[in-house]
């Protein structure tokens, strides 16, 4: 026995590498994605740790200094109410980044549940869900988002997020639960209109996996449907889901910014990068850098997610060699 083991070990000439290492090795090749990862880490640190290094309160008004110039005390100047722009950028970043994370997490969750059920069971369940997806995709996204947020702003939508979520996000965003609740309505609308693409993707994956031998094997062993879905279908379709989710982050950041820019997104006193850009529209002709600062943050976040998504698509593709 001992000799057999020894010889087997001796025969192993190549070193074993885990899947994570393989993915990382491929990911590393995409230089822009590495830069993007760095930028994203920076943006998150900036928004989450930044405020503890800032001497200012985001809502504190420094009287006599509205539209302050770029000074050492206020590196990005002060806004129309004399508040420090740099500090406000940090807190706005929390809203933009956390909002896109939460929206993407939920759209992915809904997409996985509906897509896998639809793909696995087929039949009338599939028809029902996929026709719903078709119908929702027929409706124009941006106008519908605008109309829903416009209505919710006028208090016309019977939507309310759970109190515990409001308190949690209010704590993260540094605002009252009530203000957080208003932002959460926007979140709900974004989730409501965002899950269709992912559901379609997951359904396609499950549809092709369902007929594979390992699924038949699991079925032959007597595994119930839910177990096959959770243990076999979903883990095997995770790679494209991760890629789609990464791109989704970037899209949601831009979408939220666009809504806020048009005046139907995050409302004062809260602000996101998009609404900060909207606020400076009237003043940017005098001081152009005002429009540059929040816009650059949105752009950097969006393009970084795009690069990371692109690299992940290559890194997670098992057909590609190292």
């Amino acid at each position, binding site marked *: 026995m001992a000799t057999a083991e020894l010889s087997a070990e001796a025969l192993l000439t190549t070193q074993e590498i885990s899947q994570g290492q393989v993915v990382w090795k491929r990911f590393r090749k995409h230089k822009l994605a590495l830069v993007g990862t760095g930028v994203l880490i920076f943006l998150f640190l900036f928004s989450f740790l930044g405020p503890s290094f800032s001497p200012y309160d985001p809502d504190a008004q420094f009287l006599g200094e509205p539209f302050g110039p770029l000074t050492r005390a206020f590196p990005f100047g002060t806004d129309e109410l004399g508040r420090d722009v740099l500090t406000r950028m940090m807190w706005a970043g929390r809203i933009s980044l956390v909002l896109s994370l939460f929206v993407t997490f939920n759209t992915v969750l809904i997409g996985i549940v509906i897509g896998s059920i639809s793909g696995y069971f087929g039949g009338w369940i599939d028809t029902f869900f996929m026709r719903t997806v078709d119908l929702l995709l027929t409706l124009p996204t941006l*106008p519908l988002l605008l109309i829903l947020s416009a209505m919710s702003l006028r208090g016309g939508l019977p939507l309310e997020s759970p109190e515990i979520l409001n308190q949690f996000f209010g704590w993260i965003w540094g605002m009252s639960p009530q203000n957080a609740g208003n932002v959460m309505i926007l979140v709900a609308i974004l989730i409501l209109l965002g899950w269709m693409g992912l559901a379609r993707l997951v359904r396609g994956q499950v549809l092709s996996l369902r007929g594979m031998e390992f699924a038949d094997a699991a079925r032959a062993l007597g595994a119930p449907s839910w177990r096959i879905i959770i243990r076999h279908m979903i883990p095997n379709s995770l790679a494209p889901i991760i890629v789609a989710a990464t791109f989704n982050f970037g899209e949601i950041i831009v979408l939220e910014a666009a809504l806020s820019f048009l005046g139907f997104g995050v409302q004062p006193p809260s602000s996101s990068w998009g609404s900060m850009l909207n606020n400076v529209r009237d003043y940017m002709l005098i001081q152009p850098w005002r429009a540059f600062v929040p816009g650059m943050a*949105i752009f950097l976040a969006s393009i970084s997610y795009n690069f990371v998504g692109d690299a992940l698509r290559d890194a997670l593709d098992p057909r590609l060699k190292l």
Partner: protein
Amino acid sequence: MTTFLIRRVLQGLLVLFFSSIIVFLLLYLAPGGPLSEIILQKRQSARYPVRQEDIDRLKKQYDLDLPMWQSYTRWAFGLPNLTDREPRYGVIRGDYGESWRISEHEQTMKVILRALPNTLKLTISSVLLSLLIGVPVGIYSAVHQYSKLDYTVTTATFFGTAMPVFWLGTMLILLFAFKFKEWGLPYLPPGSVSAVRDYTVPMLGLIKANSLTDQLLRLILPTITLSLLFMAGWSRYTRSSMLEVLRQDYVRTARAKGLHERFVISRHALRNALIPLVTIVTLQLPFIFGGAVITETIFNWHGMGLVFIDSLFQSDWPVAMTYILILSALTVASNLFADVLYTIIDPRIRVS
């Protein structure tokens, strides 16, 4: 083909029926409108009291007093015809309801369609510009794969797709409209479809308000802003589709016959590579006729998108709903159109 067409048209109509229900539900739930101010006045103003009868009369005028389903059938089909109020013809017979605020008592469709020429001017010119630049660039970077230019283009398309339109537009206005004016360079007007009064631009001289030059100058910035996204997407698409075609046997055969490389690419490869692009462009029909909400807002371009934004700011829900309905009808139509076009230009595809 005929059965395919009939089935698809029926499916499309069904989809439109359901989306009209969704749109109507929103309309029904919508707050504001003509009633909210009246009700507010009733609550607040003692000097000009609003009587309950007035509110009821308004409610009746807008069919807001009926049960929801009846309100829907009257809005969509003009049925049932009630004796105590004015007849409605329904969306199905071209009666989309009346505007509440933007242009009171005018048909919403009329209000929106008035902005169609401006929208077409902007969207068609940007689609043409994107095709004119995006497609050749895509072809070039496919033919010269992994060259320096290919690498630059691929990176640039990333920037193009990730660039928030509203920020790009803002930056372009700042640079070309204001900084250029400051520097005494020939600047571009920052927005609006046409000028109100004459103005002079360095090197171009006096420009008459609403002249052709004026209108063309004003078209430049919004067109560039709008084109960038399409350009990025379409060049990337052309590149990948061209790469796929170039790998095929018949291209190798053409080369083996000794044909000139330029001829192989332009006559053999390109024609097949462009097939998927035709569909992609066709799917942009809703945008071409529906306008671009964000770009039109930034440049104060009086197109359909701006009418829509106006209607939202003024709580003119019927106009907003009609806009959404138009867009979904266009989406259904363009999907169908793309499918049909695909089977016509690509003989390999058969309708099943």
